[in-house]
């Protein structure tokens, strides 16, 4: 065959010359690797440190005495109840907003997003103070509530409001991310196969977003359980778990507060952990 003038011959790549990676000496590579592992381990231990400290400083005796006092479990029950109501409110009101944010169907989407972020960025204590000005007894909303024989200071309602403010951005932003991860073409395909939008949402959108939604819900549950800053200002009574820890700490000291901290962890953590395990399994099933 005749040689063609357009054929160019590429010289063979030099021995062992991987693009980009090449000439790092083996020793240096090991040093790099061990440095990375050490750094990771340090931050991991540091983050888990408080939990380890809690477990090492608890004794059976102190747990027994703290939890056997009369009414010791009332704050726990209160926290679980208000947390459940909070989650219900978030799912009902937060899900549509999260979905609209994810699909960009709202006018001025950045403004809406900024509103959600504001509640995340404001310190909870400040939110509590501002809530007094918003829903306190001498405000229009307060008047409205008292007309309905309700009050948003030092009541169950106040506790739920404070918890909603502290946990809503975690749920809304998490759910937004979960919905954003759903390929709109799959929703389109479902529509073309005959499903009206509501059924598409139920059969495709929610199941596909479920792992992310579960995580968002679990995190906001943990936030609601641990809500303190806003709660201490507008819902000092009835006493929820975090406040009970605080008052116990104030009145009888650290050792008797620790068992309640354990109770709080035991109540707040299983849901997030279960959600984490479930969503990890669901994701891996879909990846095949």
């Amino acid at each position: 065959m005749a040689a063609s003038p357009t054929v160019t011959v590429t010289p063979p790549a030099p021995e062992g010359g991987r693009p980009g990676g090449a000439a790092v000496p083996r020793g240096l590579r090991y040093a790099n690797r061990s440095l990375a592992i050490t750094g990771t381990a340090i931050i991991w231990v540091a983050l888990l440190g408080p939990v380890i400290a809690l477990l090492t400083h608890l004794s059976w005796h102190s747990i027994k005495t703290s939890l056997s006092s009369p009414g010791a479990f009332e704050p726990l029950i209160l926290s679980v109840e208000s947390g459940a109501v909070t989650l219900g409110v978030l799912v009902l009101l937060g899900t549509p907003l999260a979905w609209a944010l994810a699909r960009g169907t709202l006018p001025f989407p950045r403004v809406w997003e900024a509103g959600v972020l504001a509640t995340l960025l404001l310190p909870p204590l400040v939110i509590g103070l501002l809530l007094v000005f918003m829903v306190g007894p001498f405000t229009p909303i307060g008047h409205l509530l008292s007309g309905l024989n309700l009050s948003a200071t030092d009541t169950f309602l106040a506790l739920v409001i404070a918890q909603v403010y502290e946990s809503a951005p975690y749920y809304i932003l998490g759910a937004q991310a979960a919905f954003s991860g759903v390929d709109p073409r799959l929703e389109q395909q479902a529509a073309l196969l005959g499903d009206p939008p509501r059924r598409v949402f139920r059969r495709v959108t929610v199941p596909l977003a479920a792992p992310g939604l579960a995580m968002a819900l679990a995190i906001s549950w943990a936030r609601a359980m641990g809500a303190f800053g806003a709660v201490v200002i507008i819902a000092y009574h009835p006493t929820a778990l975090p406040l009970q820890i605080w008052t116990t700490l104030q009145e009888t000291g650290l050792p008797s507060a620790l068992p309640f901290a354990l109770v709080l962890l035991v109540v707040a953590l299983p849901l997030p952990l279960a959600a984490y395990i479930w969503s990890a399994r669901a994701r891996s099933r879909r990846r095949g």
Partner: protein
Amino acid sequence: MLEADVEVDRRDFTVRAALTVAPGERLALFGPSGAGKTTILEMIAGLVRPRRGLILLGGRVLTSTDRPVTVIPPWRRRVGLLRQDPGLFPHLSVRANLLYGRQGSDAEAASELTELARVLGIDELLRSMPARLSGGQAHRVALGRLLLSHCDALLLDEPYTGLDASLSRTLTDLVVSLVAERAVPSILVAHELAEAQAFADRLAVLDSGEVLQTGEPGAVVLSPATRRVAELVGYTSFVPLPASPGQPGAAVAAIHPDRVVAGRRPERGLVLDGMVTSCRPAGALWEVTVMTGAATVTGRFPEPVASRRELVFTAIDPPVFGSDGASVARQPVSADRDTRWVRWTGVG
């Protein structure tokens, strides 16, 4: 019967199309990327709203911008759309995916599913999750899902582009046989001619939103209506013809690289000669570039040719275009077949 007469504005141009596809007919919309092919399908599927238009499917009005204004939403159109991404629902098993769009009695659906899964060769996979499937298997499931949903029209948006050639061919043949069996109108969008031809019994060439030519897949390639169509269907060289008494001005003959034979064959077309400037393998052929006097011509030949040699070859029956780009009658045929084409001699 699917009838669409639609207009919609895109960024740079207006897409205008008037198409009629009979039940069981397979129309291919062929054109370069960005010609508006997908937009036409999306208008029929109800995903894009035409500025002006009327879309009818089996007597039902799907879209009408004239009174009474009608826009049937996608979920009530019964139009199936297959894209390059099979779009299987990752949280559902293959079986649940297949039955997704199925309305009606379970027993009937189950027997139809079994039968179709066997035809598609996916009966072993019904319990699998989509992530476990190969690309070809996923496409088979996507096709089965559409067919089980009993859609009244099938739209295929380059579904098998990017798969390897034999798999793409197998899947296309499968669609063709199933479309024929069910007698639904179907439209395939393709930017590769061979893909369009493998599917269609009618080809529409689309460019910048306009349908330039419609015809049988073979005929469109042999007799492109305009120079632009010729370019789109693969004619790469345009050789100016000498002015003749019947044809003043610059007529050009379009040369398709696959429609050339070596040697002087004046009875078959236009004889050209010139200097070979390059020769490189192209599949099982050799792609040879020849400098003729007026143009550089590319042709593919079964034998390699040495560079810097003179080559005489014949372009088989090339279409001829006038200076306005429209097809003109080929050179008048004289009694002597040899003079049908003037010989164009280049620098030799």
